[in-house]
C-alpha cells in the first residue's frame, strides 16, 4: 500500500519564475517526513509536485524526475488524475465540500472511482472516519452538512476523505495551522497511526510538531528573496534537531534565522 518516493533534481516554475531548484530526496514507505523552512521557500510548491497539483496553477510546471516506486509520475503516459488517486492531499485550511453531508464528503472520492454499492460505501465511510478518529463524534449525524463541524473536526473529515480512496502516499500541507492545540494533538496522533499504512509527507511551521511526528525532516531555505528555494538538507529528525550538518539548519531551528 505505501510506496517510496524518489525525487531527482527537480526544478519547479510558475511561468518564468523559478520557485524551487534542484531538489533530490528519497522518502521511505511507511514513514513520516516533515518539511520545514521559512515562508516562501517553496515547501508547498514542492509538495504539490508530488501529486501534480501544481499543474492546477496557471503556469505551474516542473523539470526533473519523481518516481513512485518504479512509476515515473511525469512520464508522458501518466495521467495526473491517476497520480492524484494514488497520492492524496490534505490542505492547510479544512475544505470539506460545503454542499455535501459528512457521509457524502467521505464517499466523494469513492464515488469518483465508480463505487456505487451502498454496503461497500457504508463500510469504507465508517472505516475511514474511524481511521481519522472522527467516527464517535459524527456517527449520529452522518447526513448533516460537513461544514457544520468544528475546524478540527473538518480537518479530520478531510483526512477521512483523503484516506477513503486508499492512496499510497498522503501529503499534508500545514494541516494543523488553523487548529487549536487539542485538535492539533488529535491530528498528530492520527498521523502516527496512519504511518502504519501510508507514506506521509507533512509541511509544518511548528518545530515541536516536526520533532514529535516525523521520522525524517527536510529543511528548505532560500538564499535571498527572489531566488528559488532549495533543499538544504534532509536527515533523521533527531539528527536535524540535535546535530544538523548545515549551519543554516542549526540557525533556523534554534531561532537565529535571518
Amino acid at each position, binding site marked *: 500500500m505505501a510506496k517510496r518516493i524518489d525525487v531527482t533534481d527537480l526544478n519547479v516554475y510558475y511561468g518564468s519564475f523559478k520557485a524551487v531548484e534542484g531538489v533530490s530526496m528519497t522518502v521511505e514507505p511507511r514513514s513520516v517526513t516533515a518539511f520545514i523552512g521559512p515562508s516562501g521557500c517553496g515547501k508547498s510548491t514542492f509538495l504539490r509536485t508530488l501529486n501534480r497539483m501544481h499543474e492546477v496553477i496557471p503556469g505551474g510546471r516542473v523539470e526533473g524526475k519523481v518516481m513512485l516506486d518504479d512509476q515515473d509520475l511525469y512520464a508522458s503516459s501518466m495521467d495526473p*488524475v491517476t497520480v492524484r488517486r494514488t497520492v*492524496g492531499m490534505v490542505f492547510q*485550511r479544512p475544505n*470539506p*465540500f*460545503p*454542499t455535501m453531508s459528512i457521509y457524502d464528503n467521505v464517499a466523494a*472520492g469513492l464515488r469518483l472511482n465508480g463505487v456505487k454499492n451502498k454496503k461497500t460505501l457504508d463500510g469504507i465511510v465508517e472505516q475511514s472516519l474511524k481511521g481519522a478518529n472522527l467516527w464517535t463524534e459524527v456517527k449520529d449525524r452522518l447526513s448533516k*452538512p460537513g461544514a457544520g463541524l468544528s475546524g478540527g473536526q473538518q480537518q479530520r473529515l478531510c483526512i477521512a*476523505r483523503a484516506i477513503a480512496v486508499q492512496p499510497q502516499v498522503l501529503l499534508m500541507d500545514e494541516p494543523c495551522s488553523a487548529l487549536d492545540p487539542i485538535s492539533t494533538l488529535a491530528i498528530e496522533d492520527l498521523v502516527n497511526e496512519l504511518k502504519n499504512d501510508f507514506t506521509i509527507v507533512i509541511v509544518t511551521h511548528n518545530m515541536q510538531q516536526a520533532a514529535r511526528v516525523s521520522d525524517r525532516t527536510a529543511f528548505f531555505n532560500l538564499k535571498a528573496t527572489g531566488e528559488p528555494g532549495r533543499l538544504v538538507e534532509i536527515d533523521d529528525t533527531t539528527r536535524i534537531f540535535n546535530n544538523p550538518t548545515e549551519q543554516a539548519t542549526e540557525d533556523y531551528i534554534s531561532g537565529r534565522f535571518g
Partner: protein
Amino acid sequence: MSTVTGASAADQTPGPDGRRPLQADQASTGRVGDRLFGGAATVSGVLVIVLVSLIAIFLIVQAVPALMDNSANFFTSRVWAPGGDQPAFGILEFLWTTVTASTIAMALSVPVGVAVALFLTQYAPSWMRRPAAGLVDLLAAVPSIVYGLWGLIAFAPVFKPVQSFIQDKLGWFPLFAPTGISGGTICFIGVVLAIMVLPIVTALSREVFDQTPTAHKEGALALGATQWEMIRTAVLPFGRPGVISASMLALGRALGETIAVTFLVSALADGNPWSWSLFNGGETFASKIANNASEFSNPNKTGAYIAAGLVLFVLTFVVNSIARVVIERRKAFTE
C-alpha cells in the same frame, strides 16, 4: 456553519459600569453611522414593500369592476371581447402562449447558458476569458427591440424551414401538429426569447462559477477528479443558487417581454379552434396589452386588460417564490 452575528463571550459580560451586556445584533448599533445607515436601510426596505403593495392594490381596484361585469369565465374562456354591453373575456389563450413560450425559452437558454458559462470559466484559454465575459455582459444589455428586429428580419427566414421540418416529421404528436401558421408561432417566439435571455443566464452563471473557492476545486482535484468531475463536485453545487436566481431573472424577463414579442407574434383570428400545437400563433399577456393600449377608452375595457396584467404579476410572483423555496431548502448545505 459560520455564524455572522459577531457575538462573542465578551458580549455576554456586563460592562464595568454595570450596563447590560450587549446583545449580538446590537453589538455596535449605538454609533451614529450605524444608526444612520440602519435607519436608511429600514426606510428603503419598507418603501419597497409599500410600493409593491400599492401597485397590487391599484391593479386590483381597477380590475374588480370589470371582472364583476364579465359574462365569461375569466380563467377558462378564450374569448376576448371586453367593453360593450355584454363584456366577455378570458385569459386562457394568453396564459397558454405566455407559459409555453417562456418554458421553451427556459428549456433552451438555461442548459446552454450554464454550458457556456462553464466553458468560459473552466475550459476556455485564459486569454479569451475576459473579452468573452465582456461580450456576454454587453449582449445582456442589448435592448429587446433589437432582438425583435433581428428575429423578424434575420432569424425568421432561417427558422422557417426548421419549423416545417419538425411539423413534417413529428406532426402526429399534438405539440408539433401543423397549423398553417408559418411566421410568429409560439415556438418561434420561445426560441427568440431564449436567445434574448441567454446572455443574462450566461453572464450571471459565469459570475458565480468564477467565484467557486479554489479550495473546493482543489479538494476535488486532489481526490483524483477529472475536470468534469471537479465541476460536478465543486463548481455546480456552489453555483446552483446563483444559476437558479439567474434563471428566475431570465424567466421574469421572458414572461414579461413586450416589444420583441409584439413585433413577432401572429395573432389568432377570433373563433379559431383550440390547438395544443407549439406551431400555433397567439398573443402573450404582454403583447396583448401592448397591442391594445389604444383601446383603453372606457374603464371597463381597461379593467379587463389590467386583470390580465394582474395574472402576469401573480405568475411572476409565484415563480419567484418557488425559486426562493428551492434555494432555501438546501441552505444549511451552502454556508
